[in-house]
């Protein structure tokens, strides 16, 4: 199970979200891949990221997208969303 994290250096929401991401994913078994919105264009173009960042994209074992979280979320909200993915036995 992978999670793609897309953020940009100049983005305030990304600055706010990075520590929350680190916290919620610290005790979870995800392969985490970080991409820069500006510098990793070739790698992220296939994900069709819009103008709002940061973006979290959850992928299953076949790299199919199963969930996308756009913009700022509270730590608790992130935990709930990840919990829902767990409940569906996707992980």
């Amino acid at each position: 199970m992978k999670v793609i994290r897309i953020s940009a250096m100049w983005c305030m929401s990304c600055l706010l979200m990075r520590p929350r991401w680190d916290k919620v994913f610290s005790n979870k078994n995800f392969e985490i891949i970080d991409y820069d919105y500006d510098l990793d264009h070739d790698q992220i173009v296939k994900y069709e990221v819009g103008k709002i960042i940061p973006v979290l994209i959850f992928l299953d074992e076949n790299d199919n997208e199963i969930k996308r979280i756009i913009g700022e979320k509270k730590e608790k909200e992130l935990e709930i969303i990840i919990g829902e993915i767990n409940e569906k036995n996707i992980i």
Partner: protein
Amino acid sequence: MIYLDYSATTPVDEKVIEKFICVTKKYIGNPNSSHLLGREAKEVIDDVTLYLAKELNVKTSEIIYTSGASESNNLAIKGYCNANKHIGKHIITSEFEHSSVIAPISYLQKNGFIVDFIKLDPNGEVDLNHFKSILKEDTILVSLSSINGELGTKTNLKEIKSILKDYPNAKIHVDMTQSLGKEKLDLSYADMAAFSAQKGYGFKGIGLLYKKDNVNIEPIIHGGRSTTNLRSGTPALGLIASLQPTFEVSNENLETKIEYVKSLNEKIRTNLKNYSKVHINSPEDAVAHILNISIKGSDGPSIAKAFEKYEVYFSPQSACAQGTSPSRSVMALYNDIDLATSSFRISLSYLTTMEEIEEFLNIFKKVYQEVAL
């Protein structure tokens, strides 16, 4: 054409252009060269530095020339934090800073620094109690702008500096980009401060960093020794020389100019009270040059586009922010997503005429019909 985006950039004053041309033609030497032509060029820089030091009430050794505020902010933030990470790795900033402040702080965050954010009180000022509560023993940097570029609110730097007396490891970096030409420059509360000439009727591509002598930073551009060992590269002689007339133009008759801009601001505020869907987001005590306005039910980029049809130019948000997102500053002040989404910033200058404002208000009536009804 009506230009109302002076906080994004200003037209270059004729005296600034003349100085640039004159110095560029007359002094062909590299200021770093040891021969006569180099020494003559270096003397020009020394004279400008002396003038700026006097104007800013600082030492000549405390002025570092840069390519603009983005470089100044990067040098201050990354240069200071990297040189002092053995003391601490905690940074405090606000959620309302320019991308040239956010990006170096993001870079440091990715390299192990912890970042906390100051909250604003209901008047848009720094919540000092909250500020005290997030200060730590290992806080090494507080980075704030002197004027919020979107709303025009002023930061209470005096109180912040006073609180920091109990935290000797914490230095204060001030992004003073919006201060030039809008208020009397006061560096007494800053350990480091960034300026850009283009906000004060000077050229794009030149700015400076004020850094107190006792503040230790490391360079971000490495090379030979130049006017300072903290910023390598052949000094941009003509551009540096142009800083003197830039600061002269920005600061001469400042109080009179501010009073004049206040009259323009007041004219707009009074007129826009007639529109039920209009909300003035900039508080009354914000600098008069920046006026943040919402037309509820619309969105900032659409409003700016509608005005552009009439050759009126301004920014939906600060020119360097992402176009379509709600204004974080407006959201923080009013907690109203409609206001935050429908906001735009007009910015005024002593060059703005009352006739232009009257024409803007006439056009506003038409645009309001298009976007709000």
